[in-house]
């Protein structure tokens, strides 16, 4: 019993239990709507794993939300709720696209400049929230929601400026190819490349049919780096102290306001990095007029939540989420069940993660029951 209680208390357990509940609720909904849940789940998983290109696309889909998930998780460690990842992503995507289209330097310069621009843009957008919070005590949720809308309409305005707008489309011109971060983007279409890939069919499929890019490596690296910053550096120490007990941090001389600001800048920068990786790593390499939010940032909230705020956990939560988003399309095309069923599943999972305190209460009760019988 004590062991069961201990296992139940691990955050990973509550995440896994939540996933199981997500599937259960989805099964009930599917059955009620007259679909066979087994078939639907089969379609979901074959949509994720049946072909090499599917799996490649899952990873590509997961990359930006791992990064926005990290963004949210990082801010959360300093007790800030960065609901503005969406706006930071949009603003950074816009900056990266404009610069990428107007600058045309060799790739060794172009790529770092664009990545840094994305990071800086996201950092500024997050920093505004941080300054308003630190200086005037305005709650970050309010300001970041407002900044989400500002970013959306600013981006739509810029997309339609003559200097950037690609005629007869809803978007801008794409960025110059020197800013692409796909794996060997020109070689794979060259004669020698094609000849080489012909010999390895799965690699050929992955390389030629999907936008395999370096983003996932960046995302994994960032997750590890953020873990290091939080748990191994003095800055991270400050931020966590502020997050866990602002009053005590203030009392021992930690500059709480600076810490909050830094945390928001880093958080925004991670969302900006997500945007840079998307624009530079995936077709169509531009931005379009947005009728609504694309949820790259909002999905990051769910990812951070499922990961329990752990940076490394964001990698797995992001992959899970990316898999559902991509594989979910197959549910509709194969068995005709609406793909919204995937949203219900994700919603249920997040809901049960939020209920995880209940699980730890059950664990407490188990432990207690055990003690009183002893």
């Amino acid at each position, binding site marked *: 019993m004590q062991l069961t209680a201990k296992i139940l208390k691990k955050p990973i357990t509550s995440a896994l239990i939540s996933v199981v509940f997500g599937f259960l609720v989805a099964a009930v909904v599917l059955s009620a709507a007259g679909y066979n849940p087994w078939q639907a789940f089969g379609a979901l998983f074959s949509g994720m794993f049946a072909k090499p290109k599917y799996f490649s696309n899952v990873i590509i889909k997961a990359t930006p939300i791992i990064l926005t998930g990290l963004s949210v998780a990082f801010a959360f460690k300093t007790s800030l709720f960065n609901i503005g990842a969406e706006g930071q992503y949009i603003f950074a995507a816009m900056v990266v696209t404009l610069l990428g289209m107007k600058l045309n330097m060799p790739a060794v310069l172009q790529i770092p400049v664009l990545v840094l621009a994305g990071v800086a843009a996201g950092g500024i957008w997050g920093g505004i929230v941080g300054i308003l919070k630190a200086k005037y005590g305005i709650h970050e949720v309010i300001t970041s929601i407002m900044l989400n809308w500002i970013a959306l309409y600013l981006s739509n305005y810029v997309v339609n400026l003559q200097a950037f707008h690609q005629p007869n489309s809803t978007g801008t011109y794409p960025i110059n190819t020197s800013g692409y971060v796909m794996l060997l983007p020109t070689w794979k279409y060259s004669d020698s490349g094609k000849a080489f890939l012909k010999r390895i069919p799965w690699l050929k499929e992955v390389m030629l049919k999907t936008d395999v890019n370096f983003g996932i490596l960046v995302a994994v690296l960032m997750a590890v780096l953020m873990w290091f910053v939080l748990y191994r550096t003095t800055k991270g*120490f400050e931020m966590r102290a502020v997050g866990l007990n602002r009053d*005590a941090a203030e009392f021992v001389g930690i500059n709480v306001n600076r810490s909050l600001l830094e945390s928001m800048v880093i958080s925004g920068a991670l969302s900006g990095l997500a945007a840079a990786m998307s624009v530079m790593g995936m077709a169509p390499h531009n931005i379009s007029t947005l009728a609504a939010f694309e949820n790259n940032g909002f999905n990051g909230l769910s990812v951070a939540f499922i990961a329990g705020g752990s940076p490394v956990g964001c990698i797995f939560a992001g992959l899970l989420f990316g898999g559902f988003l991509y594989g979910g399309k197959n549910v509709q095309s194969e068995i005709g069940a609406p793909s919204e069923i995937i949203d219900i599943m994700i919603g249920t999972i997040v809901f049960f993660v939020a209920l995880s305190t209940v699980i730890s209460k059950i664990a407490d009760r188990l432990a207690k029951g055990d003690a009183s019988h002893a």
Partner: protein
Amino acid sequence: MEISDAYAVQMRGITKTFGSFRALDHVDLDVKKGTIHALLGENGAGKSTLMNILYGFYKADGGDIYLNGRKVRIKDPNTAIKHGIGMVHQHFMLVENFTVMQNVILGSEVTNHLGVIDNKKAREKVMGIVEQYGFSVDPDAKIEDISVGMQQRVEILKALYRGVDILILDEPTAVLTPQEIEDLIGIMHNLVKNGKTIILITHKLKEIRQSSDVCTIIRRGKLIDTVNPQKVDEETLAEKMVGHSVKLIVDKTPAQPGETVFEIDNLSVKDRRGLEAVKGLSLKVHKGEILGIAGVDGNGQEELVEAVMCLAKAENGTIKINGNEIQNTTPANAVKNKISTIPEDRQRRGLVMNFSCEQNMILEKYNQPPFSKKGILRNGEVRKYTSELIADYDIRPSGCEAMPARGLSGGNQQKLIISREISNDPDLLIAVQPTRGLDVGAIEYVHKMLVRERDKGKAILLISLELDEVMSLSDTIAVIYGGKIAGTFKQGQADEKTIGLLMAGGGQNAVNS
């Protein structure tokens, strides 16, 4: 003792465990009708747990409760009130901007047939109780405008209004001035004369001897003894409470004050509501001296500390340490100028409860060598340093380096903070309520540490609401009232009565030295 209706409360074999911790182990209690019965024990001994079981807050794992000789089951506080049991908690549960009257009737209002509050009837009933027991409270004053002692009376009034016969008072004197304590004891005697029964939870020995008829001592969840407090001395009570003999008097040699280290001149600070809480306060602390500030809570102590730590704005005046003015700079600057503080609220200000002990230990030093290098923490050094302090200061359980601070007992949390602050090697050590909520053994330890630092030549500023503590520990006693120092005395120059009077705002032109 057999079950009989001569006893208001009889508890038999009460057992309660929290997790694997046995808080109460087959405890019996017999409270005779019409007596004041004290429950004495250290913090965590189980006395509050026992009373919370009687009041229905906790459910006992085993044992029976008899009221007036009849067995009862008390499943929640409502049942307890129905059985005539009332409890006044340490922290009052009053609505600040309601009047006394409104607070008393809240929850059991007298209404007419339309369900509208019948204020006239309610007032008659309340005033009847007020007169019967000789409370002097103004029924129309708002809670926020009356003193803590008055607020406590309102709590008692609330219980009486609900018709209780058995009144449990949880550490009622912790927040009172000596005069208010005397008044309270008077009220308690009055209640008993009118047939009520009082159970008093406390760890203050003196008050037990002044007020109670019977005293039951509980230690580590077990019943130790029941004695007549008039017939035993304080030392015996203390020994029964902690299980070994303790020194109740602080052991120290006369101070050898040196030059002035810390000086506050004409300081004014506003509180959160924008009212002036510190009004032109001046004081000096010398090397090798403990300056104790005595005063009732809410007379500017909190704002004074906040201003010294640069957390609150000094509207006026100067704060100097070693000749440098530090007012209105940053907390980091105060720390840099060698001011260390043992804060009043250790869980809010002193510790990050979810940080491990070692992380708490470096809370002020994380960015100094050897604990970090180029912004990277060096965990090995942190561990080594923490282990040394844990051994030096006997912080328990040993080997708690990686345990969250939340897992330590209050006394050990305080030891952690004290070891951290003392190892800063400060020039001025500020100790605010350093023994609040600690048991006798831990109090003795904290006092010894403060005296030891004094003897090393440090300047120590002690701020405490416990007058006994200030009087026994300080070399110089300053009384704070209304944001000003109302009087300053050398130790032994003034008695408790004089100081108590100044604390309450009385006393004519006090000697200002």
